[in-house]
């Protein structure tokens, strides 16, 4: 199933009559980032996500989640990483790989942390906002780094 060409890519469900926006099925973003790129990266992500079929609150969920993954890589894993955004079936997926020390999915708390807790909030929020969150080891030389992928379903 390719990206939807029906409905409004950025607004509500009713799109005013007019020429259809032809969405390329192969819109795919792959980009390096550092802390200096974070605001521009969100602009680019937002446009790609919309053209891959996400609208409204689902697009916002992906943007907020992608920001947390990139923010984590910047603060805990060497100041940056590689971000990919692509369509996988009915899902829009954001994958961030870094070259930090790596971590296991077990560090993500099951229950909401205390407000005073300084850690755990970012990935806990990503898990609540998305339709899937996977954490795996990177494939680079030591340290291996982490590959974190979150996906949001296109409705």
């Amino acid at each position: 199933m390719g990206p939807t060409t029906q409905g409004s890519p950025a607004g509500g469900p009713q799109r005013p009559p007019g020429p259809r926006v032809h969405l390329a099925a192969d819109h795919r973003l792959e980009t390096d980032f550092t802390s200096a790129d974070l605001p521009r990266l969100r602009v680019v992500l937002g446009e790609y996500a919309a053209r891959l079929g996400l609208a409204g609150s689902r697009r916002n969920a992906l943007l907020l989640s992608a920001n947390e993954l990139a923010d984590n890589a910047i603060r805990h894993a060497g100041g940056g990483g590689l971000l990919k955004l692509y369509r996988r079936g009915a899902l829009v997926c954001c994958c961030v790989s870094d070259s930090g020390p790596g971590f296991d999915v077990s560090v993500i708390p099951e229950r909401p942390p205390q407000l005073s807790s300084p850690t755990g909030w970012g990935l806990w929020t990503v898990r609540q906002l998305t339709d899937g969150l996977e954490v795996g080891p990177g494939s680079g030389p030591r340290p291996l780094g982490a590959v974190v992928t979150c996906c949001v379903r296109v409705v």
Partner: protein
Amino acid sequence: MPFHAEEHTRIVPVERLRPGDHAFASYADEESRWSTIGSFAQTGITRGERVLLFADPAVPAATVLEHLEAYGPPVGPPLKRGQLKLLTMDRMWRPREISVERQMAGLRREVEEALHEGYPTVRSAIDMAWVAAFGADVEQVLWRESKGCHYLFTDAHYTEICTYDETRFSGDVLDRAAAGHPTALLKGPGTLLVLPIAEPGSGTYGLRLVGEADLSTREPFNDALRRIAESQEPRVVLDLTELSFLDVYCARAVLRMAAEDGRRVVIRCDGIHAHTFLLLGALDIPQLTVEGE
């Protein structure tokens, strides 16, 4: 005197523009220039609007397209199908002599043509470098900006941003141009303005945050929370309605402030941020009210 667009009565991030808006923007460097134009054009393409781009006539078209692609997907396809049009302002009056009336008539023709072709709305990004490039009279341009163009915007089919190079226009021209537009834009992504709420009401301390609250704007964000903590009024209002992005750290920091402060705290925001606050436990803080859409 340095030029301060943030004193404008309505200043918003570029993604908060609505159909019918006529906005002033200024830039002092290439990044700020293209981030405004690039983000505005890409959003228009995403939304299925006709996008008219009057870039600096001195910049080659291939370079303009490269800059646009730094803010979103490739623009070759929308250019090919005519959704994105690269124009120069002289096309609005040529082959006749330059005049404000002909310029306006030309813009009007572009809007009507786009609506006729079925586009629901039209947006223009106009780099004001055209003024010097085509020898326009700056007083005429300012009249057009402030008084002579309102009819284009009345039916909410047309949105326009006018971007001014701060190194090429005087402070006086920039001030008058900014004042002549109903809306002004932030300088680019990664900006956070903290402004006092003009009339917060008696016994209330109020701040309004405009732009983005993320890793890149931690300092002004934390400073805003410090100012709230140091205020004495019995009630606090935090207006986040023009905040286009709020990350998890900042949302949590706002909730911690509300939980620890003890005073009544009201957060005004749109539905996206309200959802984040609720997810992070806003309902567990009895003295906090989140007013979202």
